[in-house]
């Protein structure tokens, strides 16, 4: 009985061993049968750099030395390259299709936000600093500087004029005179040189110098200062105030006189000048039917000024005399011009 049981057990073990051995021998073959090459996974040809930029070509026209030059750039350059922005004038931007134009302008605004911040920054900027601010942003900043000085000196207020009309007319005069080119120089046939944003003539510069020496004016400018927008616009604002006083509060006559002098202010050319100023003021400065780039930037960058003006509040909260001006006059009333009668 025991022997039979042992035999059965041995047979069972032998069978089990044979089975296991058989499986062990068969396994590699079974495994081989299960093995099959996996489906290929394509390696991603992701051009990561292309995900991060827009390489589509865009045709532009840039302004180089007053010539229009057609160029083709990558869209990415238009969105990022300030040296390209510096070559695009308003009309060049107008040719850029939407929505690319708006996207690029927004980026440009973001990049130059520090330079657009306000009087404290403008006062510290040199002509060279402004060279690297693209023309459309420069123009908007210059308008705001002209508003600042018009408000600061209360131009025309003493003659009973509303500050809004006066400031707008003054900004337009700057535009008509120089097209907001702070480096503008015009030399006429007599050798007279008109300089900077206000196109300050030899006569204007000498007269402002005399007024300063006679203590009618609280600042004095060197010739190079007329290329510094902050100071040049100050000179232009003061000059325009003189013209308003000479015109006895007649804003149109003052505008004509700015270009031609008070004695020639009623001549035909002066009339044409005034017509030009009024047209540009409505179109651009008051932004009533300006081309798209101007219109966009004006709304975007001068919206606050419109709101404050509509609310009857000053555009610039700070009425403290600017630091540079204080330095120039040392002490006393920096708004001396206001407290004295016009030189007539």
């Amino acid at each position, binding site marked *: 009985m*025991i*022997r039979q049981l*042992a035999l059965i*057990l*041995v047979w069972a*073990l*032998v069978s*089990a*061993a044979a089975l*296991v051995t058989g*499986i*062990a021998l068969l*396994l590699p073959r*079974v*495994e081989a049968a*299960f*093995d*099959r*090459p*996996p*489906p290929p*996974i394509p*390696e*991603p040809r*992701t*051009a*990561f*750099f*292309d*995900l*991060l*930029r827009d390489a589509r070509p865009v045709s532009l026209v840039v302004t*180089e*030395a007053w*010539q229009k*030059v*057609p*160029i083709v750039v990558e869209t990415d*350059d238009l969105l*990022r*390259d*300030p*040296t390209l922005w*510096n*070559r695009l004038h308003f009309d060049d931007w107008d040719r850029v299709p939407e929505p690319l134009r708006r996207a690029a302008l927004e980026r440009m605004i973001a990049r130059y936000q520090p330079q657009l911040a306000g009087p404290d920054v403008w006062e510290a900027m040199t*002509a*060279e600093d402004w*060279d*690297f601010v693209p023309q459309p942003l420069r123009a908007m900043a210059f308008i705001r500087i002209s508003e600042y000085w018009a408000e600061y000196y209360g131009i025309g207020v003493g003659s009973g004029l509303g500050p809004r009309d006066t400031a707008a007319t003054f900004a337009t005069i700057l535009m008509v005179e120089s097209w907001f*080119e702070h*480096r*503008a*120089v015009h030399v006429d046939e007599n050798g007279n040189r008109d300089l900077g944003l206000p196109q300050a003539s030899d006569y204007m510069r000498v007269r402002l110098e005399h007024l300063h020496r006679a203590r009618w004016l609280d600042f004095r400018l060197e010739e190079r200062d007329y290329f510094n927008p902050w100071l040049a616009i100050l000179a232009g604002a003061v000059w325009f105030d003189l013209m308003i006083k000479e015109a006895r509060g007649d804003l149109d006559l003052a505008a004509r006189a700015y270009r031609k002098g008070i004695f020639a202010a009623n001549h035909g050319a002066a009339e044409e000048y005034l017509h030009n100023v009024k047209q540009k003021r409505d179109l651009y400065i008051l932004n009533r039917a300006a081309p798209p780039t101007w219109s966009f930037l004006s709304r975007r960058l001068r919206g606050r000024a419109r709101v404050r003006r509509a609310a009857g509040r000053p555009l610039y909260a700070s009425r403290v005399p600017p630091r540079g001006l204080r330095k120039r006059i040392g002490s006393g009333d920096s708004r001396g011009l206001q407290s004295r009668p016009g030189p007539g």
Partner: protein
Amino acid sequence: MPGVQGTGVVVLAAAVAGCSAGLESRIERVRRLEARYLARQGHERAEQGDMRGAARAYAAALAADPGLVALHLHLGYAYERLGNALALTDPAREEALRRAAVCHRLAADSEPALRRHALLRLAGIHGPASLGELGLLEGDLAELVKLDAPEADWFLALARLREDRQRLDESEAALLAAREVLPHAAVVHRELARFYRRHERFDAFFAVLERRLESEPDDRDALHALVEGCFYRGFRDYRVGGDARRASVRRGIVAAERLLHLEPEHAEARRYLDLLSRVREGLEAGRDPRP
């Protein structure tokens, strides 16, 4: 019969011991066999386009045999395709891509042979969706550029990400490293020059172009950029003194002439040659042609 009994016990003990010793490894082997079977199923499903079924089979195969590390890449790819098939706004898409990223990361970390491919997939998943998020793509790209055969694209993308985050020094470093590793890649020189131009670092901008033109004098992109840059500097940059201006204008004229020699119909080169010549005439006559 004690002899027979003793022999039986020894045989029994040996058989039991032998069986039990091999049992564990055999069970393991059977599990691996099951994993292979599941992997095969996964491959078949994937080939049939059934990515959900493939993902299930791959996941089960990996559970049965975690040693099949290559399956991480396949599982990740299956999740990737599942996710990419869904709408951008579908939360399931994000979840599928998240799982795919986990799988690719495991593949990259566990199998050196798959690392490059897995990292590429990982970076591809992060792609535009992850821009500005925790530098995920930046981390992947930083790893990619350290591999044996880096590509210019990775350096450029890495540099751009850093530039967008205003880490300009690091961005410049990535571009300079790209030039070091890939000295003949025109795109690297071009993007390095553009970087300097965007940040108005004109000395560095000109140095990059000059270096490129030393090795590749006929690189039209470099010549074109040099012509425009020289005019910009010679005409617009009032900080530049007289001699430097004259040198810049001269250099621009030489580059424009070279470009026109290579491509006579290059309208921009002709225009800039004309402009630069006028500036040179003005300077020689003692007139500043600028406003």
